[in-house]
C-alpha cells in the first residue's frame, strides 16, 4: 500500500505567534517552527500500516524553504522519501488554493492512501482533508481515532459529539487522524542519519500544472482585512483557601447569578 503523509510546518503553539503587519500572513520567519503536532500521528500511523502491509511512504509538504527542516525530521521517523512544494508564488495562499496544490502533487504520486492530521495548529481550519477528497474524487474518512486496513478496505472510528461513528471506504482514500490514534515514535539515531540521504523531490508549480495566478495572494479566496493583539484578560480576585474557600467560591458564583 503506497501512502502519502501530509506534513505541515507550523509555528510552535507553545511560543509567541504573530501575524505579519505588512501582509497579514502568519509570521513564519521569526517563529520557532515545528511539525504540526497532529501530523506526527499521521506519520506514525503510516509507518504502522507499512510495517503490516508493505509499500512506500512519501512525505508531502507545501511550505517555505524553512519547511525542509520539518521534512528531514519527518523522514527521520521512517518514511522513504519526500516531496516539497516550494515556490514564492505560494506565499499568501488560502486553504482552497493550498488544497489545489496538494491535490495536484498527490495526483503525481501513485497513492492508495493519503494520511494527514485532523487539523493544523496555526489556522485550525480542519478543511484540507475534505477539500483534497473533493478534488481527487476519492473518499475522506476524517477525524479518525482508530484505523483498520483489510485488503483495500479502510475502516475508521470517527469521534463525534455523541460517541463515535464507524465509517468505511475502499482505497484510494484520505484519512485524517486525531492524537488519540497512536503514540508517535521518536526518531532513532540511525533514522536521523538515514534521513539525510533520503530523496526529496522539489516540483515547481509548473510541474504540478498549477498557474501562479491560482495561488498566493492573487488566487486567494479570502483575505484578512485587519488584525490586532487582543488585550490579555486581566486576572480578577484571588483568595487563598482559609477553610472557607469553597463557600467563598459559591458566594462569587451566586453574585454572578450562576447559583
Amino acid at each position: 500500500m503506497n501512502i502519502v503523509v501530509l506534513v505541515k510546518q507550523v509555528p510552535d503553539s507553545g511560543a509567541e505567534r504573530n501575524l505579519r503587519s505588512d501582509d497579514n500572513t502568519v509570521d513564519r520567519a521569526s517563529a520557532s517552527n515545528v511539525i504540526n503536532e497532529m501530523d506526527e500521528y499521521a506519520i506514525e500511523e503510516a509507518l504502522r500500516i507499512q510495517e503490516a502491509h508493505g509499500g512506500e511512504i512519501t512525505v508531502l509538504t507545501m511550505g517555505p524553504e524553512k519547511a525542509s527542516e520539518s521534512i528531514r525530521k519527518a523522514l527521520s521517523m521512517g518514511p522513504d522519501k519526500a516531496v516539497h512544494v516550494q515556490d514564492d508564488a505560494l506565499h499568501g495562499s488560502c486553504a482552497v488554493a493550498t488544497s489545489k496544490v496538494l491535490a495536484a502533487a498527490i495526483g503525481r504520486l501513485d497513492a492508495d492512501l493519503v494520511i494527514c492530521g485532523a487539523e493544523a495548529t496555526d489556522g485550525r481550519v480542519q478543511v484540507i482533508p475534505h477539500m483534497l477528497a473533493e478534488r481527487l474524487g476519492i473518499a475522506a474518512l476524517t477525524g479518525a481515532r482508530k484505523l483498520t486496513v483489510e485488503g483495500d478496505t479502510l475502516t475508521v472510528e470517527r469521534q463525534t459529539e455523541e460517541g463515535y461513528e464507524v465509517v468505511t471506504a475502499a482505497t484510494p482514500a484520505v484519512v485524517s487522524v486525531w492524537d488519540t490514534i497512536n503514540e508517535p515514535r521518536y526518531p532513532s539515531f540511525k533514522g536521523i542519519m538515514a534521513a539525510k540521504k533520503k530523496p526529496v523531490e522539489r516540483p515547481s508549480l509548473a510541474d504540478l500544472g498549477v498557474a501562479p495566478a491560482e495561488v498566493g495572494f492573487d488566487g486567494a479566496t479570502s483575505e484578512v482585512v485587519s488584525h490586532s493583539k487582543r488585550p490579555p484578560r486581566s486576572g480578577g480576585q484571588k483568595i487563598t483557601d482559609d477553610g472557607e474557600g469553597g463557600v467563598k467560591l459559591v458566594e462569587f458564583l451566586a453574585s454572578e447569578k450562576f447559583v
Partner: protein
Amino acid sequence: MADALSGEILVVVEATREFGVKKVTLELLTLARTLGEPSAVVLGGPGAAAAMADRLGEYGAAKIYAAESEEIDAHLVAPKATVLATLVQRVSPAAVLLPSSQEGKEIAARLAVKLDNGLLTDVLDLDGDGVATQLAFAGSTIVRSRVSKGLPIVTLRPNSVTPSAAGGSAPPVESLDVSLTDADKLARVTDRVAEQKGSRPELTEASIVVSGGRGVGNADNFKLVEELADLLGGAVGASRAAVDSGFYPHQFQVGQTGKTVSPQLYVALGISGAIQHRAGMQTSKTIVAVNKDAEAPIFELSDFGVVGDLFKVVPQAAEEIRKRK
C-alpha cells in the same frame, strides 16, 4: 468595499437525535436575521425536517429546504455538500452559514471547492458588510477577514451569539431533490455508537463548563468534577494531561487539540492553564479556578481564583450549593 449583505441567508441546521435542533443552529438563525432573511437547510434522514419546523420557525427561519434521504444519513458529509451546492447555485443566497463543528467545517470545505469560493471558519461574528471576526493563536490575536471570492461561506463558533426567538411559526418546507454521484457515496457510515454522557449538556454548547486537570489525580476523583458540573447544570471538560492520563475520555478535552468552548462560566479545577489549554477556553465570559499553586498561569485569566486544595474546596462548594438550593 463589499456590498452590504441582504437577501436570503442559508443556515445549515445541525441537530442531534437526543436533543433535537442544536443551540448553535438557533444562534445561526439569530445572526442570519441581522443580515437578511434566513432559510434553514435540513440535511438528514427521512422525516428530519418535520420534527424541527416549529423550532426553526420560532427562531426566524422564513423557509425550510429539506433534503431527506437514507443516502444522506448513510454516508459521511459528501452528500450534504452536493445537495447544498446545488441549492446555492439555484437560489444564489447572500451567504451560507454553518456551525463550526467538525461536520460543519467539512461541509463548508467541500462546498468551497465545488463553488471555487472562499470560506471562513470558527468566526465569532459576521457583520453586514461580510466582515467576520476570528481569534487566532490561542485567542491572542483578533482577526477581521472576509471572503474575497464568491459568497461568504462562514462557520460560527458555538456560544458566540445569544439566540433570541423571533416568534415565528413553522415555515413552509420545500423538499429538495437528492441526486448523488458515486463520488458522494464513497465513505459509508456503518454504525453510530453513543457513548456515556448522561443528561449533561453537550460540551461546546453548554453555558457552564466544569473542567478537571492533572490535579484531579485519577479517574475516580473525576466524580468530584462531575458532581460540581451537575449541581451547576453544566458540562464536564478535561485538560489534555487529564485525558492523556486516562482520567477522562478524549471527546471532553478542551484546548487546542480538543474542543473550543465559550461558555458563560468556565470552572478550572487542578488545571495549570497552559497556552494550549487556554486556546480552547479563552473566550469564556467568566473564569473561575481552583489550584493549589498560587503561581499557576490559570489565575492570570480567572475572574475568581481560589488558591487551595481542590479536594477540600470543591466538596465544600458542592455542599454550599446544595444548601442554597
